């Protein structure tokens, strides 16, 4: 394994030192692993998110005006611990309550739940919204439920904008919940990523295989499929999303890279996705193309579709200034 790291043990710390050096707009507590705004916001609902590392720019790259107040990175692919989450919650707290945006993985859910209870004990109002947009996994009592993936970015952006406008905790939580309900995602991997401490790819795919419905930690999806042209892979993903979310009217499309897929390929896949949407009567009025929620150096892509309302669209357009998303300011 050749990786641009000092050692598997220092990957997170080194990256946090880098974020600290690169972004004067952020305060990075390297030791306690909390990334927060250098300019603490006042008189607004605080937004906190976090999860395992390896998905950069998620979540630290989304801390800043119009989006998160603080983020907590866990170990690679491992949920953060309550101590971090409590510290972030305190950093985000401006006495209007704090929203936890949590991706639906047992570890994340439980650790955020512990932290929320402890924060409540300290007098901070906390509401949690659990994101579960990944249609690859059946949402049934037989599983831990659908996983949280790309819609998290949309929830962080849109709920962040609402908070910035002065909405109260209930409203901000309602909006994040609405994003979750109106969004679906699906990912396909071409090559597995390598967790530094493991030192080898998380799974093996033959030369003609892809993992259909892969999770953001390289978890298996629905099935191994046959590799094919971008057009077919994109259609497969959108069909899966469409089966669960009526796509019509105005949508936001995120064509996301998993980390090692070059932008030129993502644009090509985006062209197919946008054509698919056009063919299904949807108007793609907003979009992102690039690496927004990654899986280390995994090759592949994921698609997130959010069916917009006027309110969601307005909040998506609101100014945002973070390392990874910036417009209007």
């Amino acid at each position: 394994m050749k990786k641009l790291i000092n050692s598997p043990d220092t990957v997170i710390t080194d990256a946090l030192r880098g974020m600290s050096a690169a972004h004067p707009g952020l305060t990075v507590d390297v030791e306690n692993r909390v990334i927060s705004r250098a300019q603490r916001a006042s008189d607004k609902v605080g937004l906190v998110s976090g999860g395992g590392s390896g998905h950069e720019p998620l979540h630290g790259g989304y801390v800043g005006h119009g989006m998160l107040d603080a983020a907590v990175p866990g170990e690679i692919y491992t949920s953060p611990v309550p101590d971090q989450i409590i510290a972030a919650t305190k950093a985000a707290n401006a006495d209007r309550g704090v929203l936890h945006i949590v991706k639906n993985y047992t570890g994340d859910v439980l650790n955020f739940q512990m932290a929320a209870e402890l924060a409540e004990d300290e007098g901070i109002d906390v509401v949690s919204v659990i994101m579960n947009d990944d249609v690859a996994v059946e949402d049934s009592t037989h599983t831990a439920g659908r996983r949280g993936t790309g819609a998290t970015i949309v929830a962080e952006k849109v709920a962040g904008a609402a908070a910035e406008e002065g909405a109260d905790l209930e409203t901000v939580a309602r909006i994040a919940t609405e994003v979750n309900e109106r969004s679906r995602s699906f990912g396909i991997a071409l090559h597995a990523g390598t967790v530094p401490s493991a030192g080898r790819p998380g799974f093996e795919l033959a030369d003609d295989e892809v993992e259909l419905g892969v999770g953001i930690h390289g978890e298996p999806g629905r099935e191994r499929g046959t590799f094919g042209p971008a057009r077919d892979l994109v259609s497969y993903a959108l069909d899966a999303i469409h089966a669960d979310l009526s796509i019509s009217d105005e949508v936001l499309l995120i064509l996301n890279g998993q980390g090692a897929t070059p932008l030129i390929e993502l644009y090509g896949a985006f062209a197919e996705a946008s054509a698919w949407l056009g063919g299904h009567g949807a108007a793609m009025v907003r979009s992102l193309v690039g690496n927004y929620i990654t899986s280390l150096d995994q090759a592949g892509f994921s698609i997130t579709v959010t069916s917009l309302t006027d309110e969601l669209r307005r909040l998506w357009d609101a100014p945002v200034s973070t390392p990874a998303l910036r417009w209007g300011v």
Partner: protein
Amino acid sequence: MGCTCQYAGAAVGGLIVNLDATTARAWIVRVAELIHANEQRLTDLDATIGDGDHGANMQRGVAAAVASLEEQEPEDAGKVLNSTGRELISKTGGASGPLYGTGFRRAGKELGDEVDVQAVARALEAMLRSIEELGGATQEEKTIVDALAPAVAAFQETSGQGGDLHAAASAAAEAAERGAAATIPLQARKGRASYLGERSIGHEDPGAASTALIIRALADVTAP
């Protein structure tokens, strides 16, 4: 009472009859040893049906728990378990951290400054109940519960029939190990492994395996 209790577990003719602070500490230290020795195995089990971090998670958590015990020297077994639980929650991460952490905290709370085998039985039961409650899992869902539930039952049965701490713990450890092995044919319905659906069948659950180590550690440190 505090004082008597604290040393009540000292070996009587080499026999440890109570879970005093010293024995509780020894238990946690032994857990750390067993986790350390089995870290790779837990990681491999988790890599097969999860995300391959269970060994590292547990190692991080129990190392922190031991370090904290060295600093604090809690005065009774309840406080030892409580401290351990807090550290596991703080440092483990993953699903296992809050589950084991909450389990140890609730066990510690239940135990308080009591030390006899009946109290330990109630403490282990509290551990099981809190883990079930927090994780929402029942038996046969391929989780920690599948090792812990039979362990608690065996402990209760043995102690109820007059077995001493070591006898009960040994029966529990064997039951936990059988329970962990019995997860192999199960399909996971909770945690990351559930994403695999039928592909989770045929592999031992890493959390059940670590539970077996935790209970085995109790049997080890109570051995005459």
